[in-house]
C-alpha cells in the first residue's frame, strides 16, 4: 500500500493525468473539509487545498514510503494553514461550515438529528486549538496515532490520552443534554 502511494505520488509529480485525478478525488474534499473546519472560508479553503497540491508537486520527495499518503498530505496542509495564519490571510468563520447529511430518518427525526449534528459540530469547533486539531486528525480524518504524533511533534502516548479525554469530555457534554448519546454498553 505504501509502495502504491509512493508510486501514485511519483506519477502525480511527473504529470500523470490518472494519478492527478485519483489524488484530487481522494484528497481534495478531505483537505477542503480540513481547512473549512480550521475556520477558512470556502474560497480560501479551496485555494489552500490547491496550495497543498502545488507544494507536493514542486517539493523534493520527502514522502516516507512507510507512512500513509493522507498523513503526508495533512502534514503539509497543516503547515500551509499555519503559514497562512502567520501571513494573516483573511479567514472568516461561519457560513461555509458543511451541513450534516442524514439519509433515512423521518422529517421530524431529520430535524432532530440535524440539530444534534449541528450541535456536535459546534462543540468541536469550540474546542481549544490543540484539542480541535487532535479531533480533526484522529477522529474525523482517522489518521493513525503514530502519524499524528509525527505531524504534531508530540509523543504517541500523549496523542492517545488527549484524544481519549477530549472525546470523553465531548461525550459527557452531549449526554448532558441528549440521552441519545451512545452510552456505555451500547456499541
Amino acid at each position, binding site marked *: 500500500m505504501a509502495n502504491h502511494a509512493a508510486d501514485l505520488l511519483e506519477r502525480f509529480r511527473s504529470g500523470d493525468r490518472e494519478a492527478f485525478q485519483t489524488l484530487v478525488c481522494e484528497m481534495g474534499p478531505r483537505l477542503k473539509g480540513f481547512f473549512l473546519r480550521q475556520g477558512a472560508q470556502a474560497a480560501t479553503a479551496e485555494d489552500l487545498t490547491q496550495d497543498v497540491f502545488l507544494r507536493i508537486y514542486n517539493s523534493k520527495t520527502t514522502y516516507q514510503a512507510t507512512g500513509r499518503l493522507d498523513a503526508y498530505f495533512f502534514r503539509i496542509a497543516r503547515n500551509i494553514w499555519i503559514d497562512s495564519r502567520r501571513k494573516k490571510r483573511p479567514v472568516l468563520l461561519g457560513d461555509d461550515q458543511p451541513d*450534516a447529511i442524514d439519509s433515512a430518518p423521518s422529517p421530524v427525526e431529520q430535524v432532530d438529528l440535524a440539530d444534534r*449534528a449541528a450541535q456536535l459540530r459546534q462543540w468541536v469547533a469550540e474546542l481549544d486549538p490543540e484539542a480541535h486539531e487532535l479531533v480533526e486528525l484522529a477522529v474525523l480524518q482517522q489518521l493513525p496515532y503514530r502519524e499524528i504524533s509525527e505531524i504534531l511533534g508530540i509523543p504517541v502516548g500523549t496523542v492517545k490520552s488527549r484524544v481519549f479525554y477530549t472525546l470523553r469530555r465531548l461525550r459527557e457534554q452531549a449526554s448532558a443534554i441528549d440521552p441519545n448519546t451512545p452510552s456505555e*454498553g451500547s456499541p
Partner: protein
Amino acid sequence: MTEPKDFIEFTDSQESAALSAFASELRQAHPGVELSPSFEIELADGLRNSWSWRGSIRQSPLLRIAASLLLLTALAVPVAAVVALLQTPDSDRPEIGFQMPTELLIDRESPQVPRVVPPSEPLGDDLLFDGAWALAIEQQNRFAQASASWQIRFLESPIAADLFKQRQTAVQALARRENNPAAVELFEQLESALQSGEYPTAFPCSSQELIDQLALAPDLAPFLAGWLWVMSAQVPPSGIDVDMSWPNAPWLAELP
C-alpha cells in the same frame, strides 16, 4: 484508509466502545465537502504554471544536460587550481630567479655624520620628569592607599556607620579638651580629603608644621600622625599611638 481506535488502555471496554461509537457519530456529523467544479481545472493550470528548476530539470533531459555542463564548468576552476597546487615541480622547468653580479659595487665614501649641537641652556629643575614630579606621584600613591583603607573601614564595612560615629564623637571630645583650633581644623581638612578620596591640590600644612602640631596637640596626634607618612613617607615620632584608621600603612608594621 481508516484505522479503528479503541481506548482500552485508558478505560474499560464499555466506555471504550461508547467512545468509539461517539467518534463515529462525530464523523457523521461532519459530512464530506465537495470541491467546486472549477477546482480541477484551476489546479491543473496552477501545476502547469508552477515552473520550478527542480521540476523542469526532472522533466526535461535537455535541461538536465545543460545543468550538468554548467555544474562541471563551475567546478572545473577550483578543481584545476587545487590540482595545480598539488602538482610536483618539474625538474626540467627552468627556475625563475635572478643572478647576483659577481663583483659587488660598494660605495666606499664614508657617510656624512651630522654634527650634534648641544643645547644652549643647561637642563633645569623644571623638566617634566624631575624629582618634584616623582615626589608628587609617590605622595598621590600613598594618599590613595590611605584613603582606600579609610573608606574600607568607615564607609564600606558592615559596622562602618557605628565606627564612623564613634570616631567623630571621640575626635570632637578630644578637640574640645585640646583647645587647639588649628589642630582641629587641620584634622577636619585632612579627614575630609580621606573621605572624598580626592587628592588635595595642596596640603594644608607642611611636614614640619604637622610634626609641630603632633607635639602641640597630643590628644589629636594619633589621628594626624598617619599624614606624616602620606606627605613625606616618615614614621611618626615615637610615643604616638597611631589611630586605627591607618591599617594598611607599611610603617605600622615597623612601629614598636
